[in-house]
């Protein structure tokens, strides 16, 4: 008869302690269970337990993203952030939240979704002059979505603003010294002068790592 999970836990615990067969036989199952329980944390302490219900994944826990004035966007460059996504996730949209500095003279605003090697998977519709109010969510639906993640890994989300202001995202204020370590947590595209989703490069080259990491969700 196959071992139950409880049997396995007991055996594994004995092996962890390095007990001989003779030593182990001196312990009753009740002894073992009590010892294993004394090491239990009880909680499954995952930040994902706190994510919004309708969100498939966040790039960081929503508890920590109170910065609204850093990480200003430059017109015509993609702002690139990684997101760890797992196989089977079905991605319909990218959700970006604005900070307190508004865009001005906006002509285009769109998002794009990239594979871990920074090749383009999809782009969103163009929001054109539809600016995002301060500290407000904007849902960018991916054209041709949903996209089902085939391989678990670090994907990239890009957001491109075109206009004359320098809008800020809702963000966590980290530091470029560590953000630049691969995989880069917040960079711009080396490609400049982007305008519409059609101008989105097929492969992005990262450039100019920043401090503030925008809060992103996928739904």
């Amino acid at each position: 008869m196959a071992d139950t999970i409880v049997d396995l836990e007991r055996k594994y615990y004995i092996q962890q302690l390095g007990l001989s067969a003779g030593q182990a036989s001196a312990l009753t199952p009740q002894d073992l269970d009590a010892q294993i329980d004394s090491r239990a944390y009880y909680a499954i302490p995952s930040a994902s337990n706190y994510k919004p219900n309708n969100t498939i994944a966040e790039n960081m826990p929503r508890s920590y993203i109170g910065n609204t004035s850093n990480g200003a966007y430059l017109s015509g460059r993609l702002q690139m952030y990684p997101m760890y996504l797992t196989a089977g996730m079905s991605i319909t949209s990218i959700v970006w939240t604005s900070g307190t500095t508004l865009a001005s003279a906006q002509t285009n605003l769109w998002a794009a979704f990239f594979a871990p090697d920074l090749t383009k998977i999809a782009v969103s519709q163009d929001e054109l002059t539809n600016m995002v109010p301060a500290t407000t969510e904007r849902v960018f639906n991916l054209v041709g979505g949903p996209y089902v993640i085939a391989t678990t890994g670090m994907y990239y989300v890009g957001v491109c603003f075109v206009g004359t202001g320098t809008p800020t995202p809702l963000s966590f204020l980290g530091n470029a010294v560590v953000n630049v370590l691969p995989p880069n947590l917040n960079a711009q595209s080396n490609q400049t002068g982007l305008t519409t989703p059609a101008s989105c490069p097929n492969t992005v080259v990262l450039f100019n790592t920043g401090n503030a990491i925008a809060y992103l969700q996928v739904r």
Partner: protein
Amino acid sequence: MSLSIADLRRAWYLQVLGFSVAQGAKFSNSDLAYQVYSNPGAIGGGGAQPPTLVQSNYKAAADLTENYSRVLAGTLTTGNLISGRISLQGIYLTSGMPVTSLVYVNGTTLGVGQTNLWAALWDINGNRVAVSQDETTNIVPSVTEKVYTLVNGPYSIATSGMYYSSYTWVGTGAVPTLLGTTSRDVVTGLAPIITGNGANTGLTNPASSPLSVNLATITPQNAIPYVQVR
């Protein structure tokens, strides 16, 4: 006494997640095989580090859990407290957890004219599970931890899920602040709300606390007080 590699991976996964024997027994072999497969980092397979482990590895030894990692609780002026209102914080609790007390840490601003102070625990439907004793005029010094022991505890959590811890201060003057972190209401207010003030006003002591709060009428806040459960 020999274990197959698959057995070892399943057992290791359970113990590294910190499950008790009773919790672990609720999983079938195939459930576990799937979880191990879907969390390659958790078995040292060269993936990213397992996200499910980060927080518990750094929690205070005395705590059963916390609402977020203490590593990131660095703001001494959080809370957005209002005298006589319930300030609620979402906290994920798991089956079997014996909850004896809720712990808040005060910030740098002291309350003025305090008459009452208590904490309470609520379930995902906003029903009250337990309340603490009333601290009445016992003011918590600045940047000091305060343990609110639940009356008639410990309460054993039957179902894993989001619960709410609450803090209610009553006084005549300035409200105190708490240690916490700062987010924004635009995201903390997404369901399930993780911090905000309940709609009930004019509460005076634990006996006046409602038996349930309407979670749909919580006013989300930017700041999230740091909560520990013991």
